[in-house]
């Protein structure tokens, strides 16, 4: 077997191991909840007696049997969401798109701006640009993302003093506008400005800090001295020699950081009433809507595990050293 194949198999196997751990954890954690499970699963809504009977029959099966059933298909939950009285995976399916749109845009913007800031401040280490940029990124890094969102919402959404509110204060689209028309697309973009700005500002801090540290690591290397000694221009040394090597940790970080990205999505979607998975999580935990929480936790964990495996594989493609 080629070393590359072995490496790929190993990281996929490790991802599967983690997945199994999460599934087992997810099953037993919610079985530990105190009190009557029927009450927990149906909290605060009128449920027809036959539905309760079905739920009780489901929960009265031996634990091992329930567990094996869950293991065979974790997505087969027959328990409805207590809050929305709908199958949980239907609810989740409706919300995925909005989150991907918001978070995807923010990640793309943040990685572009973040790496640019990181490269520039590492290259001009200790100079004014670096001091300002590092101070700014450290401050953004120390900021609860939802607080930044609340401030932006008050200043640019509601308006303060003589400053009128310009942007919508929540939601994804003005009610009644057709989302497939041009006006609808523009309206969605208009609604995205504040939440995307918030998430971008918070995400880019980490990318900039990592990019800077990683480029500084490369800057002491001999091959850069050689490149300079050959008489290459500073710009070429940076762009062709230093940055490609320094990019590796940052690219991995962009993949590995999905857990951090999810946290941001949960709170920022809540602040801006963005109808995605984050707001759904908030609604589920305010219930608490146990069936929904369980499903969302599984989904987020799977997403992060996949991203980690992807990071491993991408890293192996970009850096032949780890394949050995």
């Amino acid at each position, binding site marked *: 077997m080629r070393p590359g194949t072995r490496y790929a198999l190993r990281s996929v196997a490790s991802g599967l191991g983690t997945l199994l751990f999460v599934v087992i954890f997810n099953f037993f954690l919610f079985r530990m909840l105190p009190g009557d499970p029927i009450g927990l699963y149906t909290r605060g809504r009128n449920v027809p007696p036959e539905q309760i009977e079905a739920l009780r029959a489901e929960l009265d099966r031996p634990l091992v049997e329930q567990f094996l059933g869950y293991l065979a298909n974790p997505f087969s939950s027959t328990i409805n969401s207590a809050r929305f009285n709908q199958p949980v995976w239907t609810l989740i399916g409706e919300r995925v798109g909005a989150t991907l749109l918001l978070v995807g845009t923010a990640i793309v913007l943040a990685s572009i701006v973040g790496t640019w800031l990181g490269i520039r401040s590492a290259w001009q280490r*200790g100079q004014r640009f670096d001091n300002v940029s590092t101070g700014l990124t450290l401050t953004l890094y120390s900021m609860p993302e939802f607080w*930044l969102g609340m401030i932006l919402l008050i200043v640019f959404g*509601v308006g303060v003093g003589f400053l009128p509110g310009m942007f919508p204060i929540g939601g994804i689209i003005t009610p009644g506008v057709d989302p497939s028309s041009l006006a609808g697309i523009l309206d969605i973009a208009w609604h995205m400005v504040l939440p995307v700005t918030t998430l971008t500002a918070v995400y880019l801090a980490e990318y900039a800090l990592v990019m800077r540290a990683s480029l500084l690591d490369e800057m002491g290397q001999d091959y850069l001295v050689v490149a300079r000694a050959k008489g290459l221009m500073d710009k070429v040394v940076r762009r062709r020699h230093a940055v490609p090597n320094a990019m590796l940790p940052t690219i991995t970080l962009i993949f590995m950081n999905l857990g951090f990205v999810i946290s941001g999505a949960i709170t920022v979607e809540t602040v801006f009433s963005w109808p995605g998975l984050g707001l759904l999580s908030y609604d589920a935990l305010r219930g608490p809507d146990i069936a929904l929480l369980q499903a969302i936790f599984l989904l987020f*964990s799977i997403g992060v595990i996949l991203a980690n495996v992807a990071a491993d594989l991408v890293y192996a493609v970009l850096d032949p050293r780890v394949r050995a």
Partner: protein
Amino acid sequence: MGLRGPMPGPEDAADLVAVAEPAAPLVVPSSRQLARARRRASRGRAWQQFRRSRPGMAGLVVLVTFATLAVLAPVLFPPETISVVDATGDPLSPPSPGFPLGTDESGRSILALVVWGARVSLVVGLAATVVSMLIGTVIGVMAGHYRGWVGMGLNRFTDWFLVIPFLPLAIVLATVLGASLLNIIIVIGITSWPGTARLVRAQTLSVSARPYLERARALGGGDLHQMTRHVLPNVMPLVLANTTLMVALAILSETTLSFLGLGDPLAPSWGALLDGAFTSGAMTVGAWWYVLPPGLCVVAVVLAFTLIGRALEAIVDPQLSGQQR
């Protein structure tokens, strides 16, 4: 010994002196005294280095200020001032001479709430960090020290926890455990240890390869002796620098969890204040005085811990100092 190791450390030299001349008439300091003096000197050196870091000192000043405020909170604002029942102000009124930072939805002074919030946020941040550091250090040292299936198993376990996304896990745990201050501490502790464990394991592996551990083993030192007497003291400085950075993350986590309503409803942390501002609709009426102060405090304290942590890291790991500067 001198042949094998690159250079006998001061501790080895002290051992030799103590063993070779047990009853010397000269006043020879005992190995323990020597070790203590050496530690004092190295702490002094670290402080000298720390004082030269301007960001680190700025962080320290901010932190001391907040800690003082937190300690003095009951003196500055008697507990009645933050009670919902005894509130004297109008709901959500803007800053005025009586209420320098305005009032919340039940008419309590925001200034008093923010000062009291410093207590909760700092205590939860520090306590959660201690929990997480203990778990992380124990698992990390054991994962690095024991070869074979114990080490591998612990390492796997760490990797699993490292991958599970923090906030969803914390939400799920907090829901299962119930909303209270102690549970928040436990939840943050349980969810944030894997990073420390990984760092400690790496450091333990590098320490394990050093000659003084071979010497300890040759002299018959057991696993516990090796881990507590030889590995731990060498891993500790790194752990401490990391701890400072982790307090910052713990305070951010506490703020996020409390904002989501998972904190103790009776303890006004900064996150709980932001939750109050959010759920009472303070944002839609433009009550910036309710939202701004708690968040600024979080940023100040988290930034202070981060700056101190980075300065300490640069002292512990001199290779880093080149990077940061």
